[in-house]
């Protein structure tokens, strides 16, 4: 199933070409909830209500500016809006929650390769078809969003700072990363426990959804 309805994209693109101001109002009236939900999803629900509102507002301001630029291309407008919303959401997460959000994929590839090489988990995931991998990603995100807030914050800090953790020195830097978000001194043991609980819930959730390779069963 396509994430963005092509009929919706076509309709919005049509309006943007014919009457940009109307199109922007139409977008606001009909898609503001969806855009804000998208912001909430991108940030794992970590933004406060006022921060969500600010991220949405920043998104619409940036969109108005973009639409008025000479040579503006109105293709795939809803996808474009969500990309802007994602960037604004991550900006707020970085600035107001002092949360490091690393979008540099190259930085983590070595760390990932070192830990995945030769593992059953990587083998099982590798056997999934392209659409199967999308469904797996979908399942991971869905489970993460059900975690209690504390575990979500710790999990997010873990995932966004993974390349900084050594195999033997994970939880001190993780506690530091969580401290930066919460503004409080975080106990290393408590943070380790929170991550382990989160990971177990994700593991159990994936196995329940049929991804037995997570536990070493046949994929």
């Amino acid at each position, binding site marked *: 199933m396509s994430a963005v309805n092509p009929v919706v994209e076509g309709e919005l693109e049509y309006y943007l070409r014919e009457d940009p101001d109307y199109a922007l109002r139409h977008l606001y009236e009909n898609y503001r909830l969806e855009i804000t939900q998208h912001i909430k999803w991108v940030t794992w629900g970590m933004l406060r209500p006022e921060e969500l509102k600010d991220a949405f507002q*920043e998104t619409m301001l940036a969109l108005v500016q973009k639409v008025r630029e000479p040579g503006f291309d109105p293709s795939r407008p809803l996808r474009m809006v969500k990309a802007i919303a994602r960037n604004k959401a991550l900006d707020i997460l970085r600035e107001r929650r002092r949360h490091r959000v690393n979008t540099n994929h190259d930085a983590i590839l070595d760390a990932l390769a070192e830990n995945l090489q030769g593992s059953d988990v990587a083998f099982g995931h590798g056997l999934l078809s392209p659409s199967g991998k999308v469904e797996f990603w979908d399942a991971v995100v869905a489970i993460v969003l059900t975690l209690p807030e504390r575990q979500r914050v710790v999990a997010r800090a873990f995932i966004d700072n993974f390349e900084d953790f050594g195999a033997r020195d994970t939880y001190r830097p993780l506690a530091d990363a969580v401290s930066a978000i919460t503004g409080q001194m975080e106990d290393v043991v408590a943070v380790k426990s929170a991550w382990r609980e989160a990971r177990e819930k994700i593991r159990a959730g994936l196995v329940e959804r049929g991804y037995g390779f997570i536990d070493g069963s046949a994929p």
Partner: protein
Amino acid sequence: MSGQSKQQRTDRALDALLVSVIRLGSEKEIDAERLPELTKEERAALDSLGPDFMDRILAGETSSCEERGPATDCGKSEPVLSGSFEGFGLNRAQEIEAETADELERRRREIVERKAREREKGGRSSA
């Protein structure tokens, strides 16, 4: 990775898989029906932008938090349009929403009719 137990290596591999799936897939899109619902407080915050939010930003009247300067604490609940809706009762807000919906529908019809006229003109001239 020598010296790690099998369980530790499995845990580390799962960690890496989750990181790769989430970090490397972070720009994927998700179907709208699977997006998380907004809470009552989140909806209220969004609604606090007010029914003429688009009027204001299209007219260039609204400043973003960034434009208000580094001294502005964007973390506090300070609506950008503070004061704009003081004294507005719920009934007035509902009237404005109805007016907005009517206006949108009127503009939509205008666009569609204009396009139909252009097509008709183009068809006649090519005949």
